[in-house]
């Protein structure tokens, strides 16, 4: 029932999100941003959409055509599929899987293929370098993205997102799992390969990285995948660490879905702010941060969490 409105709503949200992001970036960087189409430029997304749809649908004759077309579909499709297991309010979800968290991890690991194949099929040196970086970066950060949320799973005793939210009635998991939150946030940022972790498409070094050869609607699908990844990661941060739709009793004059949306919006804004605020690290710095600092921290976090949970029994 909810699937079609959810997919359509997300794509509309992506359209407005990219306009809103550009406006915010403009505001923070002391310039205007897109402000011409419609009221304060709200309809910029529509104008961009028309432009992209009417563009020539170009396939690079020197590349691998089948994989080239397949790659953007994998990127956007895998991220849209994650939305199916996200509960927006009690009883408002497409499916309450008992492995919802693993479903998210599985889909985000399939998203790697889109980026990898996109760069490989382009048969272009910059695209290949970009997708090699993307593969290494995403496989690395996936390892402790999965491990960092296991602390939450230990506390809640379930992989189901509905159960995890309901386990936070008394205390949001941000308090006992602060380290897990920080690591999951960094890993989520790296998984969605946005600034400051956009090394796969670093425009100063690699033209546009893995999507150098993409244009028109295929480029839009890649961008959609990126923005949906931001929305999905924000939703999961709220569900796992900030109590989902739950709020303290004196605040429940608004329906739960509004509170959930408000919390998600806060995180989306933090993602945009990080893009404006932090410079891009070097590639080897990114990898050594992952393997030498974040992975050991995650394991220590898991060990300490397990110790305390067993202590209480």
């Amino acid at each position, binding site marked *: 029932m909810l699937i079609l409105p959810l997919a359509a709503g997300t794509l509309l949200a992506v359209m407005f999100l990219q306009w809103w992001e550009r406006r915010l970036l403009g505001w923070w960087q002391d310039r205007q941003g897109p402000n011409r189409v419609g009221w304060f430029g709200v309809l910029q997304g529509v104008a961009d959409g028309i432009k992209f749809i009417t563009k020539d649908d170009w396939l690079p004759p020197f590349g691998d055509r089948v994989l080239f077309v397949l790659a953007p579909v994998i990127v956007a499709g895998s991220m849209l599929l994650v939305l199916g297991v996200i509960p927006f309010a009690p009883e408002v979800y497409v499916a309450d899987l008992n492995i919802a968290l693993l479903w998210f*991890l599985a889909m985000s*690991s399939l998203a790697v*293929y889109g980026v990898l*194949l996109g760069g490989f099929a382009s048969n272009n040196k910059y695209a290949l370098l970009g997708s090699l970086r993307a*593969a290494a970066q995403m496989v690395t950060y*996936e390892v402790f993205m999965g491990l960092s949320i296991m602390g939450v799973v230990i506390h809640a005793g379930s992989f189901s997102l509905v159960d995890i939210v309901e386990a936070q009635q008394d205390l949001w998991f941000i308090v006992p799992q602060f380290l897990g939150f920080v690591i999951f946030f960094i890993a989520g940022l790296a998984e969605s390969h946005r600034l400051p972790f956009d090394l796969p498409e670093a425009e100063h070094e690699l033209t546009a990285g893995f999507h150098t050869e993409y244009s028109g609607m295929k480029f839009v699908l890649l961008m959609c995948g990126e923005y949906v990844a931001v929305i999905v990661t924000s939703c999961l941060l709220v569900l796992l660490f900030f109590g989902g739709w739950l709020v303290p009793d004196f605040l429940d004059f608004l329906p739960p879905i509004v509170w959930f949306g408000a919390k998600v919006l806060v995180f989306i804004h933090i993602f945009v702010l990080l893009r404006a605020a932090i410079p891009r690290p070097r590639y080897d710095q990114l990898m050594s941060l992952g393997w030498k600092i974040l992975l050991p921290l995650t394991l220590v976090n898991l060990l300490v969490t397990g110790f305390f949970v067993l202590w209480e029994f």
Partner: protein
Amino acid sequence: MDLALFWIPAVVALVSTGFVITRKNASHALIYLVVSLLSVAVIFFVLGAPFAAALEVVIYAGAIVVLFLFVVMMLNLGKTSVMRESRWMRPGMWIGPAVLVSILLITMVYVISGMPDASVTRGEVVGPKTVGIQLFQPYLLAVELAGFLLLAALIGAYHLGRRYLEQRREP
């Protein structure tokens, strides 16, 4: 309905595995391998093992085959390797493997048909908790041994990588 849910992914798995063997382009073969693994995951899910299905996607399709594809991309196999593959795919090459595989197939059909009850599952869903309890009670020794093996592999990989770094520093 349930039978269709089993047979469709089963056929997809068989066909895509066939393509894994016969494709001459290594990257296309790997994509078919991913499709094959995903359809096996669907079969696991239908048989009532959602946890095994999720792990199949996360670990095999999401991590191991990504690394295969990574290596294939680094080697940048061009037209020469496709031509070499097609030379290896002579009809005569199929006889030996076909004989061996048919022996295996006959054995397996014999074993399965000898079972008192042909159905593998009892229709119950095996959740993550059940898997965890099984792993850390009856199969604890196997888990520990796998842990040893992985640790040894980790240390070995670290050792090889470190020697390479030291050699590079010398000049």
